[in-house]
């Protein structure tokens, strides 16, 4: 019973570590996509002329930023997948083992 109690405590500690780890990556990533996308909508609402600045041929800054948002979402998704597999999954597995009482 005592051993089980301590391994649960260990699992909770691991989960806290996992959450801290998640926050350290997810907060900056969430800030990036919120600034990227909501920023785009603010520019579209309040800076129409700027958005109309020609960049390549008839393609204006607005469409370039839209294309950038597509790329940003895809790149963030791939980065998140890698970080999750490399950093989060091992911690989650460790916590699960600790709950089972086999963690050390």
């Amino acid at each position, binding site marked *: 019973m005592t051993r089980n109690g301590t391994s*649960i405590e260990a*699992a*909770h500690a691991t*989960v806290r570590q*996992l*959450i801290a780890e*998640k926050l350290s990556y*997810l907060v900056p*990533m*969430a800030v990036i*996509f*919120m600034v*990227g*996308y*909501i920023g*785009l*909508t*603010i520019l*579209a*609402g*309040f800076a*129409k002329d700027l*958005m*109309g600045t020609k960049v*390549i*041929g*008839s*393609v*204006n800054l*607005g*469409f370039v930023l*839209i*294309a950038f*948002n*597509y790329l940003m*979402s*895809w790149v*963030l*998704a*791939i980065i*998140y*997948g890698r970080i*999750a*597999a490399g950093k989060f*999954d091992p911690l*989650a*597995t460790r*916590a*699960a083992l600790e*709950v089972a009482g086999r963690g050390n």
Partner: protein
Amino acid sequence: MSLTLAIFTVILLITLGITYWAAKRTSTTADFYAADSQLTAAQNGFALAGDWCSAAAFLGFTGLTALFGMDGAFYALGPLVAFCTVLFLIAEPMRNTGRYTLGDIIRSRMQTRASLLAAIVGTVVVNFAYLMPQMAGAGALVRLLTGISYDWAVIFVGVSMIIYVAFGGMLATTWVQIVKAVLMLSAGAIILVMVLSLVHFNPLTLFADAEQKYGAKYLLPGNYLKIPFDQISLGLGYVLGLAGLPHVMTRFYTVPDARTARRSVVWVMFLAGSFFAGTTLFGLAAANFVGQDAIRVADKGGNLTLPLLAQYLGGGKGTFGGDLMLGFVAAVAVATILAVVSALTLSTSGAIAHDFYVNWVKRGQVDGRQEVWIARVAAVVIGVLAIALGILAQGVNVAVLVILAICVAASANFPVLILSLFWRRFNTGGVVGGMTVGLSSSVVLAMIGPAMRGADALWPLVNPTVVSLPLGFLGAVLGTLMWGRDAENEQRFDAFLLQVHTGVTPK
């Protein structure tokens, strides 16, 4: 017309065959609601793409771009960015914590009846607000494409959806979505190649031609969303609201673990995202080749833009190639609606049968065999109700309901879900407060806004999310504080966190 019907009949026969196959494999509640959690990441990714792209996405984005330029591209971009929210915050915790519904998560966090009821209300309101315009859209679209009358079109769509869900449960719904996603992506790929071949594979030409034909203003923002705050509100509604749609959350229960849930989101981001990006080019191409006037003549809202573009690419009106392409795209549009309404019906039957009847009324005292039966009955009842509402909705302005669905999802479901997953002190009072304030502010603001009242609007924004979302969070926080400290709930939070982040339930 007859080609459309022929192609659609083939699609219908395939989906009914799938339903027959799925029905034989659906016997437990886990089968019915979650396809026994046995799907792969790719299967769920395709199904999510099928789920995500309603007719509004398949037909609407292209039409908006063709008629209003850049604003259409904004509409198309939103759902992809929204998947970042789903990937970072929703997919894995959903898989780890719940079984079949949003109500499951709230219930396992709060363990109170009031909070479960709040989650049921949030699910049912969002799903019906989403289902009704889909049914009305289906009626109008099928009539336009095949010549069948509106009422019969709604009945036809409703009956097909009931058959898929009641007999085949989640397995049939999933495969209907996968078939639809494959068809939709193939149609998109074919159209893209044909469009690009017309401009010698230089997409910049599409922009230059459009500018020449309609002026530089066409490529600027604000042609559709004229009030700046509407742009921002739309953006917020998208990135947070789509993460609060119950029928999308449910999809994460169909995979075995969090890792697969995560990978399925990456799949859908590439599948659906590519299609969305394509719609912007299709819209420009349609404006150039078909012309805005011809698009408006066919349908004022531009909903027939993509079929018309397909017809043009196939060789034009009256040619076999043109009719074939038109028929194909039109049939895919109908399949699109079928897949989405099936998912909505299944998710609503989860809220009614599993959350409300079994867990709220019966307090969980129902055996599995009986629960499946109840779920099937619920699906039939919801389907019949959806048919009735769809028929009543003819000629009624349903645009306000679409806005309402997204707005309530963002302002009520999203705050409650996020705070449940991340805030230790969050309690039953917070769930009820967030749901009540988020829901009522969305409904009131949408009702007095321009989508409902047109020029007599008492409130300027079409989409009220920019105001109702902060109100929803405020309601959740105030409700939590007024409810007072709930020591037992806070103590349980460690065990809940363990489950959210690892999928393990400590015993």
